[in-house]
C-alpha cells in the first residue's frame, strides 16, 4: 500500500479526463483480473469471477479528482480558470497546479500582494488566476481547455500520511489491494473505477445500469468529526477504523448491506464506526436507484482536510478498510437478499 498509493496520486485524473489514472489502475490490477473492460464514459471494470453460486457484487471507487480547467488566457500570460468539482476557495491561494504535460503553476487572485496578504474577503472564482511562469501568450505551456490538478507531494508521517488526492485514490487503493487479496470468493465481483464522481456521480450511474448487480458498495473517503472544536457533529474519528454510514446527504445505505458489513467486521475483529455522514455523498446515491433498484451501502476511510491539497489519512484505517472489504467479499451474503 505504501508503494501503491503514491503511484496512484501521481497519475492525474480530473473529472472527465481520467485516461492516465485509468491506464495505471488497469496495469496494477491486470494480474489479478479475470476480465477487464471500459465503457463509453471511461469507467474501468475489473472482474474477478465467482464460482456461480454467489451474488453479483459491484464495488465502486471513483478514480477522478477535483481540479481546474483553463478558461481564458490573458495577454500577460495569466490563466483564468473554472473549477472541476467542488473547490474550497480558501485553499486556493498559493496552491500549486499540475497539468498533464508536466507544466506547474501557482494560484492567486486579483488585487496584488496587499489583497493576497491582508485582504479579508475571498473573491469569486472568476477573479482567481494561475501563473505558470509565462511572460506572455507566446511562451505559455498550456492553452484553453487544458486541465490540471493540485500538486500534492505525498508525505509519510509514520502512523498517518498526508496524501493530496486521497479523495479518492485511497478508495481506489483499498479496492485494488482487496482485489489482490481476494481468494475463494463465491461472488462475481466487479470492481468499477468510476469517472466523474466529483461532478455528479455520472460514471457510477451508467456503470450500475449496465451491470445491474445484486448489491453494491461505494468505497470513498469521509470527513471526520474529530477536528478541534469541530462544527461537524459526526461520530467518526481518524484512526478508529473504517466508517460505515447509515446515510449520507443524498441516500440511505441499505440496512441489510450495512448490517452485513458490521457483522463481518465483528466476526473478524476489525474496528469500525457506524455514523451519519452530514456533509456530502458518494457514488452510492447514483447506483442505488439504477434499473429496479440496487441494494447499496458505503464503506469509507476517515480523512481530514478533504478537498484541500493536503488530505490526511491513517494507515491503520486504510489497512482495516482493505481487511473489511476483502472479508465482506469472501463472506456468505445469502442473507442479505438482492
Amino acid at each position, binding site marked *: 500500500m505504501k508503494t501503491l498509493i503514491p503511484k496512484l496520486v501521481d497519475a492525474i485524473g480530473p473529472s472527465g479526463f481520467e485516461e492516465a489514472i485509468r491506464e495505471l489502475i488497469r496495469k496494477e490490477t491486470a494480474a489479478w483480473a479475470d476480465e477487464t473492460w471500459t465503457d463509453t464514459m471511461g469507467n474501468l471494470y475489473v472482474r474477478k469471477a465467482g464460482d456461480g453460486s454467489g451474488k453479483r457484487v459491484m464495488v465502486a471507487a471513483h478514480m477522478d479528482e477535483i481540479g481546474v480547467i483553463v478558461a481564458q488566457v490573458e495577454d500577460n500570460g495569466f490563466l483564468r480558470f473554472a473549477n472541476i468539482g467542488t473547490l474550497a476557495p480558501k485553499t486556493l491561494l498559493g496552491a500549486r497546479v499540475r497539468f498533464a504535460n508536466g507544466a506547474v503553476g501557482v494560484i492567486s487572485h486579483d488585487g496584488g500582494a496587499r489583497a493576497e496578504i491582508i485582504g479579508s474577503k475571498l473573491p469569486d472564482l472568476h477573479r482567481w488566476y494561475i501563473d505558470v511562469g509565462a511572460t506572455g501568450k507566446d511562451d505559455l505551456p498550456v492553452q484553453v481547455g487544458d486541465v490540471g490538478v493540485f500538486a500534492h507531494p505525498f508525505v509519510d508521517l509514520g502512523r498517518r500520511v498526508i496524501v493530496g488526492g486521497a479523495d479518492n485514490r485511497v478508495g481506489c487503493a483499498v479496492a485494488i489491494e482487496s482485489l489482490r487479496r481476494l481468494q475463494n470468493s463465491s461472488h462475481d465481483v466487479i470492481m468499477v473505477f468510476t469517472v466523474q464522481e466529483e461532478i455528479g456521480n455520472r460514471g457510477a450511474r451508467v456503470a450500475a445500469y449496465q451491470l445491474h448487480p445484486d448489491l453494491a458498495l461505494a468505497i470513498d473517503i469521509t470527513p471526520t468529526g474529530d477536528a478541534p472544536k469541530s462544527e461537524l457533529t459526526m461520530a467518526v474519528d481518524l484512526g478508529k477504523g473504517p466508517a460505515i454510514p447509515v*446515510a449520507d446527504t*443524498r*441516500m440511505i445505505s441499505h*440496512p441489510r448491506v450495512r448490517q452485513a458489513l458490521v457483522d463481518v467486521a465483528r466476526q473478524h475483529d476489525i474496528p469500525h464506526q*457506524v455514523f451519519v455522514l452530514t456533509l456530502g455523498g458518494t457514488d452510492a446515491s447514483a447506483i442505488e*436507484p439504477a434499473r*429496479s*433498484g*440496487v441494494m447499496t451501502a458505503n464503506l469509507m476511510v476517515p480523512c481530514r482536510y478533504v478537498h484541500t491539497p493536503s488530505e490526511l489519512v491513517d494507515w491503520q484505517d486504510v489497512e482495516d478498510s482493505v481487511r473489511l472489504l476483502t472479508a465482506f467479499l469472501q463472506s456468505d451474503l445469502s442473507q442479505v437478499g438482492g
Partner: protein
Amino acid sequence: MTALTWGMLRQLTETPAGPGDEGAVRDLIARWIQPHVQALRIDALGNLIAEKKGVVAAPMHIAVAAHMDEVALFITEIDEEGFLHMASSGGVNARTLLGKSVQVGSDRLPGVIGWLPPHHAKNSDEFTKTPDVNDLVVDIGADDAKAAKAKVKPGQRMIFDTPLRLLGPLQSLNDDDPLPAQGRISGKAFDDRMGCATLMSLLLDDALPVDITAVFTVQEEIGLRGALAAGLGLQPDVVIALEGTVCDDLPGSRHEKRFPTTRLGDGPALTQRDGMVVVHPPLLQHFLRVAAAYHIPTQFKRPNIGGTDAAGFARWLGMPTGIISTPCRYIHGPAAVAELSDFHAGVALLRASLPELASALASHSHP
C-alpha cells in the same frame, strides 16, 4: 365509503417511518392488505408492491403509488452529558422543532427536543433567532453518554410523537369505528399516510373495477428514490401518485390576494403541473369529467409547487402521470390538519376514474 377504520388510520399515522427506515409502516400495511390482494412483494429498495385483481382485467398496466416515509431526524452524535445531536432527513424546518416530543429509534423511546425556557433568555439571540437543526439536541432523560449509549446509537431516526385526534366537538372514537364521513383530524405524517390510506381504501375494496398495481414507496422525502427504482422495475403504462399535499389557506389568505396552494374542505387537489412534471392532459381531463359526472368536489393545486413520486416513476420512461392529493395544513411539522371529506372524495374520485381510464388515454394517443 372506505373500509378503513379509525384504528387503522391512527396506527398508520402514529407509526414512525423515516426515509430508508419504513419497515414498521410497511409491515402494518402488508398485514392489512394481504387478504385482499393477489400478490405481495418487497423490492431491493424496500418498496411494497401489491397486485390487486379487479372485477375486470385492465387493458393497460395501471400503477397507483403512495409513499410510506415521512420527514425525520437522525442521531449524529451522543455527547458527554447524554444529549443526542441531530441532522435532518427530508425537509424539516428548525422553527417547528423546539420543545417537541419525539420517538427515538425502532423501540420508540420517548424524547424531547431541548430548548432554553423564556424566563432568562428573553433578550438573548437564543430566544429570538431560529436555530440551525444541527445545533439542537434531544433529551432522552439520560444523565451521561454512557446511559444514553446504552439505549440509542448514531444513525437511528427520531420522529415526531403525535397522536391522531378528531378536532371539533368532543367525540371519542374507538379503533373499530369507521372513519367519520367528515370532520377535521390532526396528526403527524399526513404527508403521505393520507396517500397510503387512499391507496389502502382501493385495495380493501373487493369490488374494485379494474386491476391495479399498488406501490407503497420508500424514500420519497429524500428525492423520490423508491419511485425511481419502481418506475423502471414495473414499467407501468400509467402511474397515479397519491399525496398529502401543502395546504396554506391560513388566516388572511382569502382576502389578501395570496393564492393558497390548496384549501381545506374544497375536495381533493388535482395537479396540472408541479415543479417536476406536467400531468398528462388527457388524464387530467378524465379526472375532471369523472368528478363532474359523480358530483365529486375537486380543486386545482397551485402550479409549479413541489414534486411527487409521479416524477420519480416517469424519470426514465416518461409514462403518463396523474396526481391526486389530500390537502393537509402544516405538513412536515409535528401536527398536520386534514379534512376527512376531502380524503373520502379523493378515494371516490380515484375509484370512479378507473373503469374508463384506459379508453380515455387510448383515445388521446399521439398520431
